[in-house]
């Protein structure tokens, strides 16, 4: 089988300058085409920059904006994943990643988890997505697309894999920090991400494609280090830290089958068990809330979690 060529566009977006960034995307799409790429992946908010604050509303575009369709046409027969601030019809703003194929926006993933702690303030400016779906690409591979923090929640790669993803794509604007010498490559953020991506690839026996931006927004320096990980957990490619560039990686899609035959973890997944226990856990959480409201004098400590009556769990159904 002919290898699939992925181009990682590890760029430094210009903050708040949508037109400049659109032009840069077009340049890189053209370079990727010359390089023979089949799939071009751009980082989170590559079209707008990350630290937008109140600029978010000023650079927001709907998913059917003609400029996105224009980019899709520029991609030609390549597939591309681009990220932007999406304004919904009801004027909520989302951090979105779109799959562009056949001259159109084929699929949009809205970032599910918005970090609002430490140096992050996303929930102040954005709404969280509420759908997690895979999409069949014209490349003959089913994609699970996620944005940055989405990958810091186990359920995301797991759900995508169970939904049939063979390739998990994470687009990021990950700020470099925690520069202690004890970390691999001297950067705590990079060490954590590398651990996650290898683990997810191995556990889901899927390819993991990570595209992280570089450059500086205000105080934040983004560290790049984009990667492609094989379904075995082996890193096929690691881009340099902090360097802007378009990096090409060839993968064998047949590796997914080989890995899954030899290591049938997905076959042995037990989503029904997971669902049953999740229902129980949710029911117990609800019980706790009810207990707190109705039995205030005793307080929640009087009834530890797990001892309340199961309400709608399958075990009692």
């Amino acid at each position: 089988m002919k290898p699939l060529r992925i181009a990682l566009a590890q760029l430094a977006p210009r903050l708040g300058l949508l037109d400049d960034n659109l032009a840069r995307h077009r340049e890189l799409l053209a370079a990727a085409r010359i390089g023979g790429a089949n799939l071009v992946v751009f980082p989170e908010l590559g079209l707008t920059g990350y630290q937008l604050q109140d600029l978010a509303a000023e650079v927001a575009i709907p998913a059917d904006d003609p400029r996105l369709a224009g980019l899709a046409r520029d991609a030609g027969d390549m597939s591309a994943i681009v990220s932007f601030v999406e304004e919904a019809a009801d004027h909520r703003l989302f951090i979105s990643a779109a799959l562009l194929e056949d001259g159109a926006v084929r699929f949009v993933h809205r970032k599910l988890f918005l970090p609002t702690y430490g140096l992050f303030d996303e929930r102040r400016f954005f709404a969280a997505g509420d759908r997690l779906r895979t999409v069949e690409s014209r490349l003959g591979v089913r994609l699970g697309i996620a944005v940055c923090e989405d990958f810091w929640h186990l359920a995301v790669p797991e759900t995508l894999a169970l939904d049939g993803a063979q390739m998990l794509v994470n687009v990021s604007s990950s700020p470099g920090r925690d520069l202690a010498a004890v970390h691999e490559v001297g950067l705590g953020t990079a060490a954590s991400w590398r651990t996650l991506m290898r683990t997810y690839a191995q556990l889901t026996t899927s390819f993991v494609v990570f595209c992280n931006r570089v450059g500086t927004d205000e105080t934040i320096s983004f560290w790049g280090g984009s990667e492609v990980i094989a379904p075995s957990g082996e890193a096929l490619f690691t881009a340099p830290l902090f360097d802007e560039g378009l990096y090409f990686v060839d993968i064998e899609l047949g590796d997914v089958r080989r890995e899954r035959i030899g290591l049938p973890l997905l076959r042995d997944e037990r989503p029904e068990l997971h669902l049953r226990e999740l229902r129980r856990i949710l029911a117990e959480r609800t019980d706790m809330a009810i207990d707190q409201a109705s039995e205030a004098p005793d307080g929640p400590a009087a009834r530890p979690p797990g001892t309340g009556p199961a309400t709608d769990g399958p075990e009692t159904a």
Partner: protein
Amino acid sequence: MGPGAASELGDGGDRRGRLFELPPELAIDADVARRVMVGFIRNQLRQAGFSRGLLGLSGGIDSALVAFLVAEAVGPESLLCVLMPYRTSSPESVDHARLVIDRLGCAGDLVDISPIVDGYFGRDGEAGAGGAEAHEAASLRRGNFMARTRMCVLYDRSVPWGGLVVGTGNKTEALIGYSTLFGDSACAFNPIGDLYKSQVRQVAAAMEVPEEIIRKAPSADLWPGQTDEVEAGFSYPELDRLLFWMIDKRRTDEELLAMGFPEAEIARVKRLVAVSEFKRQVPPVAKLGPRTTGVDYLYPRRRPGSARP
């Protein structure tokens, strides 16, 4: 103040032996730090529409390191180092500053601030513009005045130079408030403000800042013989360790005590940090209108259109 047992001698450059004490938990990857800071300087200047920087070069390690970083980021030809001694400043400070300028091959400029400072406080029994009361001012007031005079000179020089003032304050002094508000802390951006003094030394050694600058006792040089460590009663490696565990690693007082930090030092450093909070923040604006700057009008400093044309 900290337990000596946990502190080891760090190496300040393999070839040149150990130059300074580096607590192991503060060790960073100097190459990564350098890479981040150089990129930060380059981007801050470019995003603001500038290609040049300038800074006050004291002869100490902090400004020497920033000079090296700016020279690497935008080239020595785009850096102006301004020496601003007062008549009581140590001659060694000027020598060390010149060493940096010679090494980098950048522009250097010397402005003697004595007439400005003396013009206010007076000299030799003669009152200056500040009157008889100011003539009797304690060294702290004079030191602050000098720091703010240097700020005035730097910002004035930034106009003909066509560059931005690059900050040279480190994290240790920012956290304990060992700086002059609107004086040495004034800048367009600061590449080393998140590095403890011990880490400044580590990066300075990696970038081959002249050894005599790394070795000498840090001093604000506001009056003869002043050194930071004598004035404040701490050693930098110990203070850095305490601040690191207290602030970066969120250890409670009890945990710090159990780690061997003396109770009195914990209390003293906590007080220094709390009492200097005002120096680290933009002054509060009374909230009156629908959108208030810094409160609910929140734009990135480098927003579109913000760059000098």
